[in-house]
């Protein structure tokens, strides 16, 4: 395992350490960086994405490599510290960073009681449940704007996403086929299908796309299914996410599969490969997904 610490991090921390230790028993009582009023820490990917959307860079987040791999945009500044695992951030290190508030997902909160001795912990309901994911994200973003005093930024972000979705919808006005949104597993026999109220399913709904998969999905809006599920809707277009080498392997397998070649969508060439989007992402992810799918599906617009 590679340690996510750079030499610069260590030097910075070494320089900061004497001050932290001087600051007495409750170091968060005085912020060592008076320039920024808030020293926020985020322990969840969606919360981190929303904070960055608001332009409010956190002091530290958990599992930086995971964020860079899954969400990627908006980019995480280099200065942000890595606290380690999502559910068990390093406490002694966190204490030395003197945060003013720690934002966690509500499902993480019961395991994070010890954090309350460092700073107030704010649990945030990240899983949308029955509310459509985008609507839920907008509420979350407004709440966080309230917290950070960045209401203008929140309004701009929401407008931008809605504009992107509107634009994509008008591009797709001539498109009437059902769509499978999926990811191929390496074994070439199983797939992950996206739908329901999850972020990807919800964007598809807002684009007036017919999701060809109508079954149950889990809390993140995804479910595993056998490849034969793609045969249910003969007219559908198959949209799948490109996860690099993994997808290459999967497509190699599918080339040898009789079932794959018997699918109407495959025979007629209605298969679209598009860059991967974090399926539980926030507004920026939704924005990118809407634009991507709009451009790609427009090719099949005449039905």
């Amino acid at each position, binding site marked *: 395992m590679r340690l996510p610490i750079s030499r610069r991090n260590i030097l910075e921390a*070494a320089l900061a350490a004497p001050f932290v230790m001087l600051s007495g028993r409750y170091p968060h009582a005085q912020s060592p960086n008076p320039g920024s009023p808030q020293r926020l820490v985020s322990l969840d990917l969606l919360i981190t994405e929303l904070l960055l959307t608001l332009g409010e860079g956190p002091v530290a987040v958990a599992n930086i490599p995971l964020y860079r791999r899954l969400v990627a945009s908006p980019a995480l500044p280099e200065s942000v510290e890595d606290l380690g695992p999502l559910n*068990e951030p390093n406490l002694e290190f966190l204490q030395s960073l003197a945060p003013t508030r720690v934002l966690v997902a509500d499902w993480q909160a019961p395991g994070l009681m010890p954090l309350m001795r460092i700073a107030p912990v704010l649990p945030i309901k990240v899983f949308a449940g029955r509310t459509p994911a985008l609507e839920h994200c907008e509420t979350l973003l407004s709440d966080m704007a309230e917290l950070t005093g960045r209401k203008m930024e929140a309004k701009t972000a929401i407008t931008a996403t809605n504009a992107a979705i509107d634009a994509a919808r008008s591009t797709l006005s001539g498109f009437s086929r059902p769509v499978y949104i999926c990811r191929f597993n390496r074994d070439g026999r199983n797939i992950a299908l996206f739908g329901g109220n999850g972020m990807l399913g919800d964007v598809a709904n807002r684009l007036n796309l017919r999701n060809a998969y109508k079954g149950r999905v889990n809390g993140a809006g995804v479910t595993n299914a056998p490849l034969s599920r793609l045969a249910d809707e003969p007219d559908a277009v198959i949209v799948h996410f490109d996860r690099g080498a993994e997808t290459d392997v999967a497509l190699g397998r599918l080339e040898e599969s*009789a079932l794959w070649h018997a699918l109407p969508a495959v025979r007629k060439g209605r298969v679209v490969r598009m860059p991967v989007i974090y399926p539980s992402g926030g507004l920026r992810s939704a924005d990118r997904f809407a634009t991507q799918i709009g451009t790609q599906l427009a090719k099949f617009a005449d039905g």
Partner: protein
Amino acid sequence: MAETSYLPSRLRRLFLPFILTIAAVLLFAGYLCMSGLAEALSLSSAPNASLQSVQLFYGALPRVIVALAAGGLLGLATTLMQQGLGNPLAEPGTIGLLSTSRLTVAVALIWLPAFAGGFVLPVLAGSLFGLVILLGLSWRRKLSPLFLILNGLVLGLVCDAVTSMLILTHYEDIADLLLWQSGSLVQDNWQVARLLSVCLAAVSIITILLRKPLSLLDLDDTAARSLGLSPMMARLAAIGLATVAAAAVTAHVGLLAFVGLAGAALARICGARGFADRAMFSALLSAALLLLTDQTMQIAEMVMAIPAGTVTALFAAPLLLYLLHSGRIQQQTERAFDLHVPHRIVPTRSILLGLTAVFVFAILLALMVGRAPQGFTWATANEFSQLLPWRWPRVTAALAAGGMVALAGCLMQRMTGNHLASPELIGVSSGATLVMLPVIFFLPPLSRSQTMLVAAIGALLFLLIALRLARRSQYAPEKLLLTGLAITALSGSLLSSAIYFGDIRLTRLIGWLSGSTYAVTAADAMIALGLLAAAVAVLPLIQRWLGLMPLGEPVAAALGVEIRLARLCIIILVALLTGVSTVMIGPVTFVGLVIPHLVRLMGLRKPLAQTTGCVLAGATLMIVSDWIGRTIAFPWDIPAGLVASVVGAMVYGITTSRSSR
């Protein structure tokens, strides 16, 4: 227990596999009609005909063959493994080879993402690698079954610990591993079906050819040798064959938990005795069980896809429980193993003193030394007061949990006389785990104390069920263990379904299952410490029981032990210890399973010395592991339970190699 049979017994025994198969075939027919695939049979020229016939001939049909072949192979593999190791709880997973292949699959997925060989090569490499390590470690002991099992368990637990760590750190890369390990039988061509059928035929033929020498393994080694058999070679053949069979299935369809074990146990319950008989019936029963499970899942697939591997236990465990408690089980003759550990000259007292010294050193180390971004630091007097509130609850909790689980494991192994018995088999941890699932995924988030209360209720509930089931048999160890195994398999099955359907929240579940002291509070730690102290105080009162029970029920009863009472008391003590530590930091299997053996290998054998040694060693291991987990990969906290597996394995390796000299 005598059976009264009216039919020729072999014919009567075919009844159960026959019924299961008929049920599965009916389900298959139902599926064909409901999905409209039946039309493809009549070669009509409907517009969809080609798609449907492809689905039928390349999907549904090979799937039936794969289920039968994989089930048969697993049944055979399990019987072979049980024969080779002489333990009715053994299965291909017992000697750790499934865990090594799981680890190689995880490694291949993360670091060789473009590797196109799928899972087959990693699984084969992992199994082979594991087998070589295992045989290398056990060779000097002449492949004695006990050492094979112990080394295999340690190997398996270490690999599982590393895999859990990889899942926690590389959650997203590993989605395919989660799918593979859930064991999906979905097919899209005949390749796997053909391969597994050939494999089944080959393994069956070799088993038939070798049935004479393999049957002789039922005797003890000296008797077998006097009949001209090399027990070592026969054992090697049985284990090698079982490994090949299990690896073939695992490589092509993933982990199918409990199928083989259920088949083998059912075969015994239905009255198959000799090796050849057991092999045949366990293969038949496993095949029928897997087919039935998979066909049911295929029908359910129209609503939601659930891979067969995650639910096999849901089908097999209740059947096993029912037959187990309907009074048709026969008494099994356990073979006692001699440890062949040479007596050490070091007296008990010096060993205990040495352990205490290491224990005190570990506490000081864990309290004083920490790691910050600039490196390791000794806490100075000033900082110490600030850091102590973070550190002492963790150290105390690790101490208490390690001591409790090691003690519970030692009691359990002494009571049952089975070296594979671990405190989890009483069903308490599984109960806690089962109720944690809905708590994490479906209920609104609860606070820590509420969560602990729920877990405690679950643990208590399952303890009551286990006691209720065991009461009729006078708390007989064999039934208790098999019942525990079935309950553990049930909870494992629900767990793997949760992992299969789960989202990122499952990382919290995996964290809890790994044994982490992260979230313990001062109050938890003090309660646990109090309970440990109370349990240690009780030990001198039960030392006579502990000394006599491993000798077996007749001997112990003849020497005046009130067996029923003694068993009940020990079960309750084990349940209390396991329950409290599970609720506090999650299950820590390794400590409970391996520490008692380790302590005995060090030379502590008398009941009181061994139990005290277990408390000290278990506590030390957990404290050191917690400290290492906190510092080694800063800022990443690695759960203590995972580190304990790795550190414990190293200590175990050193101890065995020293004591074998």
